[in-house]
Structure formats: structure tokens, C-alpha cells
């Protein structure tokens, strides 16, 4: 960077877009201006709208994956089930896993990260708003592309892990695995761009005074999650490129007859796959770490330990992948090494659980719906964590792996952990996002029903697995003792579906009821972190003015002060601390754009072309490249959109520097202390 040190600062004051005032949008699109209606959603670059779209799309795919799960459970209701053929069952369980992981849990994490993280650090938007839109649309096209396989010859049938060589054309001649492979490659693009974007946002765009160790835990966990994605996705991409070469161009990466090693796929897949597990659970950990203190009426216990245990999980997550391969024949020394690393990753996880418990300890617990779900996460994840430790014991795992014991284990982690955390987040943040509260009574009923159904569905699978039921079998015989618990699990699965239905009902019911209620308070829960300072629903500009942060839980300590003897007293009324809705006209925000959608639409067209006719790939390629050029030439801000001020929101143009205003930091904030802190701060 020595080269740029003497870069003149002055020209940066150029109003954005000035040099591009003669921008011609290639005669294709005029600059979108709509701020309402469907067009505003298609072209939006607002992190909040994108977050909502992530969430809504993920819930749609959740229903798709859920229906797949119900079909699987219905098939296993009794021995020799005849509802599904073997082929269809294999496709359904493959797509169930793929959908739930890549199209549901990861995107819900992205939804919360998109919506909340900029609010929690006091930013106007993410670092690259158009790339953010691109990430979302790419995720959507990947999901639709993946699921279009159902109508074009059937879904992938090799499991979400798609082990070689069963994933080769010889053993899976339909296009299903190609859809899986190319679809996840596209989804990988979405995840990677999203990761870069969100990391830059956290590192660069925090409000004045918001040092790393003052960030809310959810923001911390988002940072760790996105770093995991940044490094995990390319490994999967490498594996998938090899598979694509094999399947489409007859390469020999997994061709055993030419000396290929099937374990190469497993290593690459799980080097991605295990960090993947942690990046699915950490956002939920972050959410409950913000929710538990609010309803315990006391701060999170051991904030630095909660943060560093999350970071430790992120690091250690890279050294445990081969515990998925204890029986693959990797040799006793590797098995021993990975068994030990896997056991010890339980330590930081245990630290989190104990800190959450200590947060509740001595508090004044308010059992609201979000609190119930958060406690549900602590308990259900404990079960999943403990069954994980029993699987880390490698000799035991040789009995457990690929049985229903493992199915039980990771559903306790991903449903009982991640999804309960997301439900807590939905109930907690609903009013902030949509401006009305979800009905609490229905919410609590939702919790109890889901807890009941979840345990009915997945707890019996522990015993089914230990008593010998293999995973991924479309049928089982009577006489093995599997009947009873399969029935219980199937009944549980249908109750679980009804609890999801209750949640969806609550959304519409509460919305209808809200019309008769007074507008919701910005801070209905007496919460702690600064996103609650904004009006509900959050205005497009987020904060006006941007708050200056002086400690963890800054918002809380604007309301309450601690006396010398540690007691808490109110120092300000909430109404005086929260921000009023302003017209926001003086705040310049990034302009909407069509180009992210264009590029995102081009990607699946390229993929279809690879499967059917290369001409289509060419057309898709032209759309993608044209879209990128249109994007690059489009100024991040619309020169014609009137703005007579100089408070700029961040931009995502490669030129940067000129328009990239970090956090609306103001000269008025001549707070030397916070400025000094900002400079001397560690980066990541």
C-alpha cells in the first residue's frame, strides 16, 4: 500500500457519479427508480429488503424440503412401505438434505446477517449493496435451477454428500447430479460474494466507537460464519469442478479404473462440509446470545468468552473433517488424530452452553416466545452436542455412523440448534422488520408444539440407530424391531409440520390483528443492542443520526446506568433514546439497479446450456458478461436522483474510495477517544 499513501485526498470529495454523468445504460435499462411495488424489490439494493427476501425465499424452500421430509417419513411409516419407489426415495432424501442445508439454513443465516448485522454495527447498508442484491438473486436462481430438476428428469440421487464414484455418469446416468453440482456451484458464487461483502462490512463500516469487542454477539458470529464460508466454499467449488469435468467432459478424477481415489472427493467435500456445519449453527448461537440477556434482564455472562469460543469453534472446525471418514479406511493414525480434535471442539461449544446458562442464572427471566425458543436451543443443542461427542469416539462411531443415530444427532444440532435459534430470532425481531408483533400466545403454543413434535420425531432415531437401522434406506423389514420408533417419528414429523403451519398462521393472524392496534414501539422487549434504537419497521436509511458507541449493549446503557454499587437505575426514558422517524431526504442511499438480477439470471442459463446444448451456454455467457459490464459502467449512484447533500451511503463500485463512506462518521464526532480506538484497532 505504500504506492497509495501519497494519494491526494481532496478529489475524493467529488459528488458521486459526477465523472460518469454521461452514463448511458447501454440502451437496455433506464435506471430503476421505483421504491414501492414489485419493481422496488427486484431492483433493490437495500440490505433490509434483501434480508427479507432471503428469509421469505428460505421459508419457501423450507416448505419444499419439509414436504420432501414428510414423504420420506410416510414411506418409513411401516415395513416395506410402498408409497415411494427406491429411486424416488433416493432423490427425495438427497434433495431434502441439499435443500435444507443450502437453500434453508444457510440462507436464513444470511437473512439475519443481511438484515441485522448492518443495524447492529450502525451502518447505512452493507459495503457493496449491488453485490448484496446479486448474492440474493444468485441464491434464488441456484435454488430454482436445483429444483427444476424435478421437472426435467428427476432430482439428484446420490445423497447430499454425493460420494464418488456413485456420483459418476456410470452409476447415476440421469442429469440429477448435474443439477445438484451446477446448482451448488451457482449457490457457491452467491455465498462467496456474500461472504466477502459481509466481512468487509463488519471490518470497515462500524459506527464510531463500535470497536470489535463492542459488537453484539450476533455480529461476531456473522463475522466468523462469513470467514468460514470464505474459505470453505472454494474447497467445495474445487471438488465440484472436478466432478463437473468428470460428468460432462469424461475426465478421470473419480474414475477408479484409471487409478483415481474415491477418497479425494470425501476429503475435499468434508474439508468444506465440516466448517459448513459450524457456519450453519453459529448465526443461531449469535441470535440467542443477544436474546437470552434481554429476557434475563442482565448482560451476557462472559462476553469475551462467548466471542472467543465462537472464534475458536471457527478455527477448530477446520481440523475435524475426517471424523466423517472414520470408517473410510484412512488408517488408524488419522482416525486417532481426528477423534481427538473432534472431542476437543466440544470444549468451546460447552463453554457457550455454560455461559448461556450463567446468563440466565440470577436473572429475572421473562418467558416470552423468543426466550422459550432460545432456551429450547440451549437444551436441544446440548443433546445434539453430547451425541456428537459420543460419535467423536471413533470406535463407537464405527457402530453409529451412517445409522439413524447420526440422523438424530445432526437434526438435534441443525433443527434443535440452528432452527430453534432462527425461530427465536423470528419472534424477537418480527416487529422490527415488519412493524407488528407476532402474537405471543400463539408463539408460545408454537414453541411447545414444536418442542414436542421435534422430540417425537428425532429422539427415537437415537435408539433406531443404535439398534441397527441404517440411513438412506427406502425400506426396512419387519423383525428388526424398527416398527415402533419409526411410527413415533412419522407421527412426530407430521405434528412438526403443523407447528410450522401454526407459525405461518401466526404471521397472517397477527398482521390482521395489528391493524386495530397502536403502532408498535421501537423497543418492545426493552432490548440491549442498537438495532432497537431505530423505528419499526426500520426506515431505509437505518439510523438518523448514526449513534456513537461507547460500550457493549450501548442502547441499554443509554436507558440505564449502573450505580457505584452495581445496581441498575433508569437514566432515560426509552422514548427519548430511540430515534424518531425522519424524512431521511438528506441521507443519500445507493440507487437500485437491474444489473445484479441480470447477471444472476444468466448463470443458470449457462448451466442449462452445459447440460443440453452449448448454444444456450453462449447466450447465458453473453448475459452474464454483458451484465457485468453494464454493472461496472453503471455508477453506483444515480446521477439523476436528486441529492443536494453530501452524506453518502456506501457504494459497491470498483472505483470505491470516492463514494465509499464507511459509517457516516462525522467530523462533529470529534471524540478523540473513539477515533484513536478506531485507528489502533485489530483487524479481524
Amino acid at each position, binding site marked *: 500500500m505504500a504506492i497509495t499513501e501519497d494519494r491526494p485526498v481532496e478529489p475524493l470529495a467529488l459528488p458521486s457519479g459526477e465523472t460518469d454523468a454521461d452514463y448511458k445504460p447501454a440502451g437496455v435499462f433506464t435506471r430503476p427508480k421505483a421504491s414501492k411495488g414489485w419493481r422496488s424489490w427486484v431492483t433493490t439494493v437495500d440490505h433490509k429488503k434483501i434480508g427479507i427476501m432471503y428469509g421469505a425465499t428460505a421459508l419457501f424452500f423450507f416448505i419444499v424440503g419439509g414436504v420432501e421430509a414428510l414423504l420420506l417419513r410416510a414411506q418409513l411409516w411401516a415395513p*416395506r412401505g410402498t408409497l415411494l419407489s*427406491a429411486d424416488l426415495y433416493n432423490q427425495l432424501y438427497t434433495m431434502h438434505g441439499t435443500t435444507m442445508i443450502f437453500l434453508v439454513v444457510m440462507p436464513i443465516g444470511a437473512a439475519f446477517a443481511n438484515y441485522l448485522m448492518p443495524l447492529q454495527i450502525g451502518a447505512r447498508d452493507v459495503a457493496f449493496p449491488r453485490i448484496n442484491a446479486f448474492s440474493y438473486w444468485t441464491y434464488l436462481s441456484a435454488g430454482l435451477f436445483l429444483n427444476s430438476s424435478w421437472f426435467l428428469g428427476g432430482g439428484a440421487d446420490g445423497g447430499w454428500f454425493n*460420494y464418488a464414484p*456413485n456420483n459418476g455418469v456410470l*452409476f447415476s446416468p440421469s442429469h440429477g447430479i448435474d443439477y445438484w453440482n451446477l446448482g451448488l456451484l451457482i449457490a457457491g458464487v452467491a455465498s462467496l460474494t456474500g461472504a466477502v461483502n459481509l466481512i468487509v462490512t463488519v471490518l470497515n463500516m462500524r459506527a464510531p466507537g463500535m470497536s470489535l469487542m463492542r459488537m453484539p454477539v450476533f455480529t461476531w458470529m456473522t463475522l466468523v460464519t462469513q470467514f468460514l464460508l470464505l474459505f470453505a466454499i472454494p474447497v467445495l467449488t474445487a471438488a465440484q469442478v472436478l466432478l463437473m469435468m468428470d460428468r460432462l467432459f469424461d475426465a478421470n478424477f473419480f474414475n477408479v479404473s484409471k487409478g*483415481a*481415489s*474415491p477418497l479425494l472427493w470425501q476429503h475435499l467435500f468434508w474439508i468444506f462440509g465440516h466448517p459448513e456445519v459450524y457456519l450453519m449453527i453459529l448465526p443461531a448461537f449469535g441470535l440467542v446470545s443477544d436474546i437470552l440477556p434481554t429476557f434475563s434482564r*442482565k448482560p451476557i455472562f*462472559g462476553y469475551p*468468552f462467548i466471542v472467543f469460543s465462537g472464534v475458536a469453534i471457527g478455527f477448530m472446525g477446520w481440523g475435524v473433517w475426517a471424523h466423517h471418514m472414520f470408517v*473410510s*479406511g484412512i488408517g488408524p493414525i488419522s482416525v486417532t488424530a481426528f477423534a*481427538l480434535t473432534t472431542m476437543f471442539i466440544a470444549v468451546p461449544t460447552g*463453554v457457550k452452553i455454560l*455461559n448461556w*446458562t*450463567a446468563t*440466565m442464572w*440470577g*436473572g*429475572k*427471566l*421473562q*418467558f416470552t416466545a423468543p426466550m422459550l425458543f432460545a*432456551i429450547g436451543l440451549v437444551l436441544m443443542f*446440548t*443433546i445434539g452436542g453430547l*451425541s456428537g*461427542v459420543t460419535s467423536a*469416539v*471413533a*470406535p*463407537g*462411531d464405527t*457402530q453409529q*455412523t*451412517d445409522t439413524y443415530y447420526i440422523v438424530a444427532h445432526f437434526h438435534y444440532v441443525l433443527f434443535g440448534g440452528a432452527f430453534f435459534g432462527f425461530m427465536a430470532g423470528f419472534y424477537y425481531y418480527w416487529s422490527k422488520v415488519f412493524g407488528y408483533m407476532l402474537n*405471543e*400466545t400463539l408463539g408460545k*403454543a408454537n414453541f*411447545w*408444539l414444536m*418442542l*414436542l413434535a421435534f*422430540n417425537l420425531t428425532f*429422539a*427415537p432415531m437415537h*435408539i433406531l440407530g443404535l*439398534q*441397527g437401522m*441404517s440411513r*438412506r434406506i427406502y*425400506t426396512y*423389514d419387519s*423383525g428388526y*424391531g424398527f416398527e415402533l420408533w419409526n411410527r413415533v417419528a412419522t407421527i412426530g414429523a407430521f405434528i412438526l409440520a403443523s407447528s410450522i403451519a401454526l407459525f405461518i398462521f401466526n404471521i397472517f393472524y397477527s398482521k390482521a390483528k395489528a391493524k386495530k392496534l397502536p403502532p408498535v414501539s421501537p423497543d418492545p422487549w426493552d432490548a440491549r443492542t442498537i438495532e432497537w434504537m431505530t423505528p419499526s419497521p426500520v426506515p431505509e436509511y437505518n439510523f438518523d443520526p448514526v449513534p456513537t458507541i461507547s460500550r457493549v449493549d450501548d442502547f441499554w446503557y443509554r436507558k440505564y446506568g449502573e450505580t457505584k454499587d*452495581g*445496581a*441498575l437505575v433508569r437514566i432515560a426514558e426509552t422514548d427519548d433514546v430511540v430515534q424518531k422517524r425522519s424524512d431521511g431526504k438528506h441521507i443519500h442511499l445507493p440507487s437500485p439497479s437491474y444489473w445484479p438480477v441480470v447477471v444472476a439470471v444468466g448463470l443458470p442459463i449457462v448451466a442449462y446450456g452445459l447440460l443440453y446444448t452449448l448454444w444456450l451456454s453462449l447466450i447465458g455467457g453473453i448475459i452474464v458478461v454483458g451484465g457485468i459490464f453494464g454493472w461496472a459502467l453503471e455508477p453506483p449512484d444515480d446521477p439523476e436522483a436528486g441529492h443536494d447533500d453530501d452524506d453518502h451511503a456506501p457504494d459497491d463500485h470498483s472505483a470505491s474510495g470516492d463514494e465509499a463512506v464507511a459509517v457516516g462518521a462525522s467530523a462533529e464526532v470529534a471524540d478523540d477517544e473513539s477515533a484513536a480506538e478506531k485507528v489502533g484497532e485489530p483487524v479481524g
Partner: protein
Amino acid sequence: MPRRSVALRVLAVVTVAVVTLLFVVLILDAFRNDGKPLTTLRPEGPSSQSIQNLMAPVFFVALLVGIGVFGVVFYAAWKFRQRGTDDPEQFPDQVHGRTGLEIGWTILPALILAGVAVATVMTIIDLEKRAPDAIRVEVYGQQWWWGYKYDLNNDGVFDIETATEMVIPVGREVDLKVTSNDVIHSFWIPGLNGKKDAVPGQRNDLKVEADIEGVFLGQCTEFCGLSHANMRMLVRSVSADTFDQWAANQQTKAVEPTGAQAKEGLTLFKAQCAQCHIINGIDDGPDRPPVPLVSGIAPNLTHFMTRGTFAGSIFNLYSPQGDPILGNPELTANPGDPGATLVGGPVDTTKVNRAVLEAWLRNSPAMKPAYAQGGRGMPNLGLSEAQIDQLVAYLETLY
């Protein structure tokens, strides 16, 4: 805060009660392993026993830790709940953390895990030990059945080639090399040892040994395509004498049948079946044309009738032991018993499960999903009923 609704309270109580009861029943069920032939919780061999010895305390400690965490959380939830009479502005002590506690609960689980780790390493070492007198068997998986090659005298030459069922002498270690001819499978006899993947191009080590005579079942546990669910294993543990007789008989070649119908069957076999199936002494010559299967050869049928099950052990070839009438032939949890035929005795045709065998020959893809057209699995041969009778008559001479 809305008033507490009675229905909600009932739902909460019911949930807690049902879930608690469920967990208690599940834990008790772990001790009820009768009628569960694939259970991992009742070891019948030294390897599975050593896994059990390791895991039982691990499960117990995990259970204790789980009960501890649940107990603390429930106690905290009850003790520190906000009561209706409380002043919402009356705050609890604002504890931000306590470093001593943090260090304590970092070290404590680490110590527990260190103990588990030591036991784990010892068990791994134990499972890697091999007895000098072990019998060497190469196991190969193929879509969707298992084949076994025995090297009885440890000279590097396979003496026996069989399929579907593995026969081992009781109380003697059997040293397995597990491999695959196509995709990855996993060889797993829960009663005898943990599983090991059958990876093409790789020979993975596993040992099995049974403490008692009897039949041990298994199930392929690595997803291997369409009929993964229909790929089972069966191990017969027999006395040393019986094993020697069995081994001697297995090394004999098939002889030309004498009956007229069986002779017709042999002709038919050579025309229709010999492309894929080998019968030693009949069609194992050096001039065999290449097999049209993706994976390699189909099961060796030289001593077909010495096996109690067929087609990846998903159908019974004989009625199960102690079952005078042919019960449900699909109840392979109670596998067919070849009786004296196991060691080469004549076939008791009254015990043969003709109905299922004929159905298999009539249309095997309908019996077990396969991609027969793609060279994976047995196709529908379009045989007439008379031809099926001839083939069955011939097959019944293979013992």
C-alpha cells in the same frame, strides 16, 4: 404481557411430560435388544465387546452431563422466573462474567474429554491388533450383494469363492480385507464389530470374531445407489469341525446333474445365466467371454444351495430354523436355514423356498430394484414356467 392461557399451560405440561416420558422409555429401550438382530448394543464378539466397553461409560457420562445441564437450566428457569408481583424496573445483579468460573468450565470438560480420549486411543489400538492364526478373507461389495474369497492356508491364493453369506469358525479371528468392485459400500455386522467402508481401489482392514455359534446379520451402511436398502450381509458362525467340512465342500467343483429336468436346466443356465454367473467346473474356463456387467461378475453359484438366503440376503432360500411350514419368506430378520446342506449334505426340497426363488427367476427387477438395462443387477430373463422349473431343478443340485 398477555394473561396466561389455560390451554397454553396444558400444552406446556403435556409437552414436558411426554418428552420426559419419551426419553425415559428410549433409554430403557436401549436395554431391550431381543428381536433386534442388528442392534449394536449387544456385542457377540471381542471387537464389538471392546467397543461396548468403551462406549457404555461414555454414554453414561454424556447422560449425566446432559441431566446436569437440563437440571441447571430448569432450576434457573424456575428459580429466577419473573413473578407477576415483581417490579419490572427492579433489576437483578448485573453480573458481567467471572473469569474463574470460565476457566473452571473450560478445564473441567477438557479433563473429562481427556479421559475419554485415552480410552479411545487404547480401544483403537486394540481393534488394530491381529491374531497370527486368523483366517484371511477378502470381502468385496458390488451393487447390491457381497462376495467372499477365502485364503485358508495364508498362501496368497484364494481357496474358496462364495457370495451372499460368510461362514466363519466360532472363537477364531477372521481378518477381512474389504473392497468394492464399483461404488463405495460399507460392511457391517453390528454384533461382531463396527463397520468398514468397501472402497474401490482400496483394501480396508477389519476383523470379525464371534463368541458364540449362530447367525449374525448386517446391512450395507454406505449409500450405494438404487438398492442400497436391499444389500444385506449374513455371517454364520459355526463350530470348527463344521467350518472345516464346509470349507472342504466349498472347494469341490460342481458336477453334471443326472436328472432329466436338471439337465435341461443346465443347458438353459449355460444359455441364459452363464454370461454373468460362474459355476466352478461348469463355466469357469479360461475362454469365458467378458461379463456384460458394470461392476464385474455376478454371484458365484457353485454351492448355491449351501446358503440360507439369496439376492443380497434379502430373500430366504430355505425356511428358517424351527419353522416347519414356510413362513413369510421376506422375514429375513429370521434367515433361512440350509441345515445339513451347509456342509454339502443333500438338499431337503421340502424346506426350499420355491415360491420366492421362482418369483425371482420370473422377474427379478420386480423383486429388487436394479438398473438391469444398465448392466447393474439381474434382468428379467423372460423365462417360461417350464424353464423356471428346469432352472430350479438344476439349482437344487448345486450344493
